[in-house]
């Protein structure tokens, strides 16, 4: 029975890999690392309740509502009925939870993936020592334009080599 429950949970994790972030459509919620847990209640009875626990990337992330709804839709389509999507804030999401595969996909999509967190998350001013690689020409000769980009999770950079501006999925 425990084995079966594990398989049932694994099936849901797999399904969640098909739920994409509406703002960065190459990343699934699994790649982003925002799914914290999947629970199946009352597995033995017929009334199996599914709980998916997610955590927001940013407090004001407007995509969270859409993400919850999309998870619900995918599960409903697969015949699950009792579905609960809940949200937890602690431990706070960090870009370190993003999968390596997700980082590769981001880069291919033209967004520079987050670097290791220790490099960037501090209050020091005007620092430009961090090497963010241009997702287009792969040069490290890039410059920060703004810490705030097209969405809350991105910063705006420009490549001094190929002159293209690009988004950087900033460390958090």
């Amino acid at each position: 029975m425990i084995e079966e429950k594990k398989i049932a949970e694994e099936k849901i994790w797999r399904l969640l890999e098909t739920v994409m972030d509406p703002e960065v459509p190459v990343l699934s919620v699994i790649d982003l690392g925002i799914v914290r847990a999947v629970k199946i209640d009352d597995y033995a009875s017929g009334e199996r309740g599914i709980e998916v626990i997610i955590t927001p990337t940013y407090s004001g992330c407007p995509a969270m509502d859409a993400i919850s709804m999309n998870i619900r839709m995918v599960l409903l389509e697969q015949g699950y009925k009792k579905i609960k999507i809940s949200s937890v804030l602690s431990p706070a999401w960090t870009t370190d939870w993003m999968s390596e595969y997700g980082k590769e996909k981001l880069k291919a999509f033209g967004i520079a993936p987050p670097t290791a967190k220790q490099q960037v998350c501090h209050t020091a001013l005007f620092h430009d020592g961090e090497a963010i690689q241009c997702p287009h020409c792969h040069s490290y000769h890039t410059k920060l334009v703004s810490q705030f980009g097209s969405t809350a999770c991105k910063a705006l950079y420009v490549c001094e080599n190929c002159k293209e501006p690009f988004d950087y999925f900033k460390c958090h």
Partner: protein
Amino acid sequence: MKELINYTLHLADDSLILGHRNSEWTGHGPILEQDIAISNIALDLIGQARNFYQYASTLINNPTPKYATEDTLAYLRNTNEFKNCLLVEQPNGDWAKTILRQFFFSAYQFHLYQHLQNSRDGTLAAIAEKSLKEVTYHLRWSSEWVIRLGDGTEESHSRMVNAVDDLWMFTDELFQPALYELLAAGEGFGVNVSSLKNEWLKKVKDIFDEATLPTSFEAKKEPSSGGKDGKHSEHLEKILAEMQFLQRTYPNSEW
């Protein structure tokens, strides 16, 4: 319980009102990148406010349901029920004043959340832990702008000096605890704000030094307070008139 509710509402109101003020810049920022930056900061603050309001509404509805939601708390309370400090409701003025208001507040919020992370109340601690990462970006961004403007041209320097003259009088209130803050700190779920003043002053002095701004802080105007107890300036009245108009005219409308 009443203290915890009031304390949570106070934290929510501070973030909501400053977030709303910043959102007034959306589409009007001095350059596109900074328009986006201030709008992002607005979004972070309103997100934090939502987390606090959601928590406050669960507390209010327990044990007897009173039909409080994050929306009723933001859109249906009167001016004298808002517990934000006067600093955050001050009008945007020019870019220098907006920057300085953000810097004063972010430096305060940075220290506040660092302590609130250790709150005895798990939800407040979690919201603080989450928000602190965002506030770190706000503090860095606003610090850099204070330096850029203060140590910029004659014009930008004098605008920064004027902003200090306008806003300094509202900074005292941040560190004067309201009764619910005192009780919250005593119970271990809130932060003793008066203990934050020295850390805050040090940060302000460091940045002002680099920005070549005077650090004597002789207040030209009498310190003003009362916002945290619901005694607001006319400015909040105007913000709420605009922000609450739709829900008050067409209750429960959605879009």
